[in-house]
């Protein structure tokens, strides 16, 4: 019996030893991409397509032999949209999983919560969240792919100026996205000669916004701007029509999914919003550089999971900016990857053409946003 035990132990030791060797051999042949996304919870409609996109393309890259022969090892955690979880998971990604680059932060709150951690650990992070605060002021290790709320506000104000609108009523929710958007509207309005004559708020889980809109009806606003996402904007639009208000309605890029049109129904007709080109990909002129990228992504995603959203597209952009940087760096060293991410130039993604620089960690111009109007229950590309 004792002899048998000894053999057992010896075999065990051998096994452990082999795993170590094997593990090491494997390590040099992989590049580790970590991610922390809000796949469940209130922001799940953002995080879910993001994760699906990452998984789909990482599988595809690995099936083709990886990046320069290096397989991608993908490690993912679900934050449920909670900032505290985001912090824990990012610490785990850095200290335990020892990832080379991190994609994530579905929401601005989640991303802002981890900036200090990645800055200290010197690991590059590409965020999928909207707020301009993530990249302004520029942080050495932090990048992002989605358009900012400031760009959305600018695009909307440009359109208003074209239509001769100078007085607007603002109505926003109580979420982080809403509040940040509201602040950008106030900061930018004077630049475009626009006066905000009403500033109303609602809770994102509220069931009725007619009170706020009745107040807006009593002002001399020439248009209503609603910064929000989820079901609330659909209720706002329906309530506006219910009250018989005929003013032009502007929404933010937060409602750029078919769900909005489905929920708001005929009330959505005439609503204008800035959005990434993905939702009007087939309406783009043939010479648009993004057209092919967008249609390819749409085809692949829809074949596997169903209707695309622009949010999954942000993950696509982040992943391929990372892949490009790893290819150019010819290394999985985080600081080399960071330098190459910053040099991203002319990358055609779903959000636009990215040209990053040491002073611009997003790299998108205002033309990356398209102005879209809802017509007969469908998106119509205006310009």
């Amino acid at each position, binding site marked *: 019996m004792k002899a048998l035990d000894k053999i057992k132990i010896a075999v065990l030791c051998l096994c452990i030893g082999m795993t170590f060797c094997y593990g090491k051999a494997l390590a040099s042949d992989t590049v580790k991409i970590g991610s922390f996304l809000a796949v*469940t919870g*209130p922001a*799940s*409609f953002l995080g*879910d397509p993001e994760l699906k996109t990452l998984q789909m393309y990482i599988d595809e890259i690995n099936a083709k032999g990886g990046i320069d022969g290096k397989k991608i090892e993908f490690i993912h955690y679900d934050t449920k949209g909670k900032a505290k979880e985001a912090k824990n998971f990012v610490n785990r990604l850095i200290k335990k999983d020892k990832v080379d680059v991190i994609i994530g932060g579905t929401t601005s709150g989640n991303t802002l919560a981890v900036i200090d951690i990645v800055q200290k650990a010197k690991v590059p992070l590409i965020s999928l969240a909207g707020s301009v605060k993530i990249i302004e002021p520029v942080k050495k290790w932090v990048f992002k792919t989605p358009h900012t709320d400031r760009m959305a506000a600018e695009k909307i104000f440009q359109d208003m100026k074209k239509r001769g609108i100078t007085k607007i009523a603002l109505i926003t929710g*109580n979420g982080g996205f809403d509040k940040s958007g509201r602040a950008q509207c106030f900061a930018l309005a004077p630049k475009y000669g626009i006066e905000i004559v009403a500033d*109303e*708020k*609602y*809770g994102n*889980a509220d*069931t*009725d916004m*007619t*009170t*706020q809109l*009745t*107040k807006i*009806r*009593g002002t001399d606003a020439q248009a209503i701007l609603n910064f929000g996402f*989820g*079901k609330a904007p*659909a*209720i706002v639009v329906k309530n506006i*029509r*219910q*009250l*018989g208000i005929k003013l032009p309605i502007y929404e933010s890029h937060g409602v750029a999914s078919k*769900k909005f049109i*489905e*929920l708001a*129904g*005929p009330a959505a007709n005439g609503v204008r919003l800035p959005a990434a080109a993905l939702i009007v990909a087939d309406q783009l002129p043939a010479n648009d550089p993004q057209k092919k990228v967008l249609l390819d992504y749409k085809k692949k995603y829809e074949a596997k999971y169903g209707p695309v959203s622009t949010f999954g597209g942000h993950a696509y952009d982040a992943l391929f900016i990372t892949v490009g940087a790893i290819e150019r760096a010819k290394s999985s060293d985080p600081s080399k990857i960071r330098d190459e991410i910053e040099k991203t130039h002319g990358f055609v993604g779903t959000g636009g053409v990215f040209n990053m620089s040491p002073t611009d960690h997003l790299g998108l111009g205002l033309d990356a946003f398209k102005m879209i109007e809802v017509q007969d229950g469908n998106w119509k590309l205006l310009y």
Partner: protein
Amino acid sequence: MDQLLQFLISGLTVGSIYALVALGFSIIYNASDVVNFAQGEFVMIGAMSAIFLLKDGMPYPAAVFCAIAITVLVGLALDKFAIEPAKNATVVTTIIITIGASIFLRGAALLIWGKEIYGLPPFSGDKPIVIGNATILPQNIWVMVGTGAAVLAVKYFFDKTLMGKAIMACSYNKKAAFLVGINVKQMLLVSYGLSAALGAAAGVLVAPITFMSYNSGVMLGLKGFCAAILGGMGSSMGAVAGGLLLGIIETIGAGFISSGYKDAIAFFVILVVLFIRPSGILGKAESDRV
């Protein structure tokens, strides 16, 4: 001031939704002194079931009926598998069990129906009805009528029927009720089924106005709970008074003071009311249960 009419109508609209949810709380509270925190989930399950049955091609009335039946089954199962096995637990423990059940039901709904938000077509059109310089949607009238009918039915049930009285007896003293021949276990089961049915009806009525997703029950449950507390827990008239009052406070607060502090104003008023009348506006004082 010409806005006041619209504020009041909006307040009554929102308030009747709260009242309908609050009513569901009162039945289980009457039977067992327990606040069932899964009440909001009953609302969600009723609405989501109806939405998906309708999508599968079932005619509207049948879908509504089946949705209510499904929710009743969920309510009965909740009592049978979670509440009844813990029959010797204190009220607080049972309340915690209902919180756990609400999380479980939410998770199950997430797995079955996904994370998307859905709407239900209104019962009778989307054309607003104009009253003076205010407007109201036909669906809002449906909610008000539905709430009114439900209140009268619940009141009749508890005041006039033998079963209703038996349920009330269980709440006052379980042992005494048992001794006079009331099947306490069965009464509790009935109360969970009834309250689930009421929740589901609320869900079907409000889904065309407010849209539904797997987690919509949380907020509706919370507001309904506030309304029930404000009006007096266990009183069906109190639920209505609390709901309508909460709705009107919210809209008047948002309309005349600040929409950003809408909820804060409402909670402040609730605190003041409860400070003066701890058992709610129409609640009975607790002194008769020594």
